[in-house]
């Protein structure tokens, strides 16, 4: 069976709020996603602080394809497909480290940090000077950066990253620029395999607060302060026309950190003050978000002041239609006192991650949804409801960009995500957002803001290449 665009349009009826579960489990749909969604969208690669020195590399995935991200001698960052041009073997299987070159373990083809083929064993004897090394480098990947976050794109015709993010940068800036000096990612990534389709976490991360009181009843409310009524009353939802989603609160916690000195308290209070000076009071700050398709997290969101000063970032890599791999990073302001960094790093895994008292209960739902869909027939043929809040959206908000819902529980972000998914899945050309007249204006405003408040990640003019000791 070959799915037509019409079939897909029937499965994702975002206008009337219904969804076919077929999109979560169908192999053909998954294969098309790798081409049309993961092959064309901007995908999160790494943060600047994960690869600080020349020769530092970090391995990740774009869609289901392995990718190397490497800091070059001139300080720039390049990304390349982690697959040898001779027989496809991965040329790097460490998660991170520092290298001068990558040697394929199969036949020994050698690539430099930029992915260029530099030598092959017995090259003269066996290729007789006929191996054109300039043509057989690792497949290079377009890379762009926004405030320390590096994204990659397989599609050279895709619009620039800042256009892709669109007005969502309005929200991102508050997480990435809360204090002077930018962010750093703390060492270590929690990685775990979840039986489930990647879209199920994309929509939850993009704004499903509705599940929290039930799914997380044994952690939120029991182990941590939580009031679902407040969440709905003071929460807002954003559905960006570019497919990004956000559920947010606009108050940021400062104040005391239990058991820590006045320096920490002062720093926390200062952070709130600086944030408000920079971005204005009432600016959306904490919540949970998805940047289409597979990057998201929990910026500045926690039940208590100390841990609210960190942002959890997540990426979910598809591993077939019925499985994804979740990666969890923790980021803090570089200027945070070391005492508080140490405290956060020991505390953050308590709530989130594979063993986190909150997050572990999500895995249960995702996995059982997968089981039902994988094995069932009737269960795949019913339709699912995503109508919550339909008809109450504000299409133009005075302050907040994107489509807005003035309540914390709703499926506006989910409808925005699936609408965009459908556009990617059904178009041959790169799907430019055209139906919303305000989008070009959003993009212009985003560019102006980026110009007005640039975050200097590294001063490349004064970059001093370091020689790696262990090359």
């Amino acid at each position, binding site marked *: 069976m070959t799915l037509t665009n019409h079939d897909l349009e029937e499965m994702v009826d975002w206008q009337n709020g219904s969804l076919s579960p077929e999109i979560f489990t169908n192999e053909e749909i998954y294969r098309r996603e790798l081409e049309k969604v993961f092959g064309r969208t901007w995908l999160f690669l790494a943060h600047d602080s994960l690869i600080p020195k020349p020769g530092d590399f970090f391995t990740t995935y774009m869609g289901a394809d392995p990718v190397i991200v490497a800091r070059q001698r001139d300080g720039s960052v390049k990304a390349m497909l982690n697959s040898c041009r001779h027989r496809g073997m991965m040329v790097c299987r460490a998660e991170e480290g520092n290298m001068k070159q990558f040697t394929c373990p199969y036949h020994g083809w050698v690539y430099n940090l930029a992915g260029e083929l530099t030598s092959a064993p017995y090259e003269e004897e066996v290729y007789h000077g006929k191996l054109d090394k300039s043509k057989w480098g690792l497949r290079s990947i377009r890379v762009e950066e926004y405030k320390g976050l590096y994204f990659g794109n397989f599609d050279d015709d895709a619009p620039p990253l800042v256009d892709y993010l669109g007005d969502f940068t309005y929200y991102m800036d508050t997480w990435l620029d809360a204090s002077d000096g930018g962010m750093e990612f703390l060492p*270590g990534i929690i990685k775990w395999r979840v039986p489930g389709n990647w879209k199920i976490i994309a929509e939850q991360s993009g704004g499903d607060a509705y599940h929290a009181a039930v799914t997380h009843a044994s952690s939120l409310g029991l182990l941590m302060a939580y009031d679902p009524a407040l969440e709905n009353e003071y929460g807002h939802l954003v559905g960006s026309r570019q497919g990004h989603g956000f559920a947010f609160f606009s108050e940021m916690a400062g104040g005391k950190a239990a058991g820590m000195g006045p320096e920490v308290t002062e720093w926390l209070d200062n952070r709130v003050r600086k944030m408000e000076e920079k971005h204005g009071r009432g600016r959306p700050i904490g919540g949970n978000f998805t940047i289409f398709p597979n990057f998201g997290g929990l910026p500045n969101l926690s039940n208590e002041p100390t841990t609210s000063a960190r942002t959890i970032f997540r990426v979910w890599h598809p591993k077939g239609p019925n499985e994804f791999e979740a990666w969890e990073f923790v980021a803090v302001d570089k200027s945070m006192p070391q005492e508080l960094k140490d405290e956060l790093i020991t505390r953050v895994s308590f709530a989130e991650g594979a063993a986190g008292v909150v997050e572990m209960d999500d895995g249960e739902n995702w996995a059982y949804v997968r089981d039902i869909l994988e094995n069932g027939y009737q269960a795949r043929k019913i339709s699912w409801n995503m109508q919550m809040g339909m008809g109450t959206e504000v299409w133009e908000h005075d302050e907040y960009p994107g489509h807005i819902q003035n309540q914390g529980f709703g499926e506006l972000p989910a409808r925005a995500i699936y609408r965009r998914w459908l556009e990617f899945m059904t178009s041959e050309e790169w799907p430019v957002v055209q139906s919303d007249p305000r989008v070009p204006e959003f993009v212009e405003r985003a560019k102006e803001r980026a110009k007005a408040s640039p975050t200097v990640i590294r001063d490349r003019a004064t970059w001093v290449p370091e020689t790696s000791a262990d090359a």
Partner: protein
Amino acid sequence: MTLSYEETAVHQDEAFPYIHVSPELQHQVTQFYYHEARLLDEWRWSKWLALFAQDIRYWMPLRRNRLRTRSFDQEIPTRIGMSHMDENHHELSMRVKQLESSTHWSEQPPSRTRHVVSNVWVEQVETNDDGIEELSVRTYFIVYRNRSEVDVDVWAGQRQDVLRRDPETGFKIANRTILLDQNVILSKNLSIPF
């Protein structure tokens, strides 16, 4: 009878330090671990929690895929870094509270588990500043989990414990480091204690 540190014969092999302990001490330690495993597998989590000292650090660090020639020592983090669990007594007691609640869906209904503990090595016997004997003990484990119908996970790893003599329970676990032999956790969560 318990052998003090002085009474134990220390064999200091360069690559592999170990000590001879009396059969009785070996037996006490092994029985303690069997008891602990049974409490876990019978869902008696409060009783299990009572085996931990108030100053416990219960730590499950991440494992990292590093290149051997360069930074193999960093495979297991020695300094502070992100972890699956890094708990003090209060946090551990909250986990138990969660396990005992009726709405902890990853353990409701609870998983059937078998904690199989083996390779019990008493590596060091010392007397702490309060004059109480402390043992460094390494154990290997295999944990099997089945929940609901066909949901199965198997985890293997090593625990490095400090056991402190205790008049009530025989020992209290004063420190626990759990090295799970997975870089990517191959299960939807880690909702059971190790």
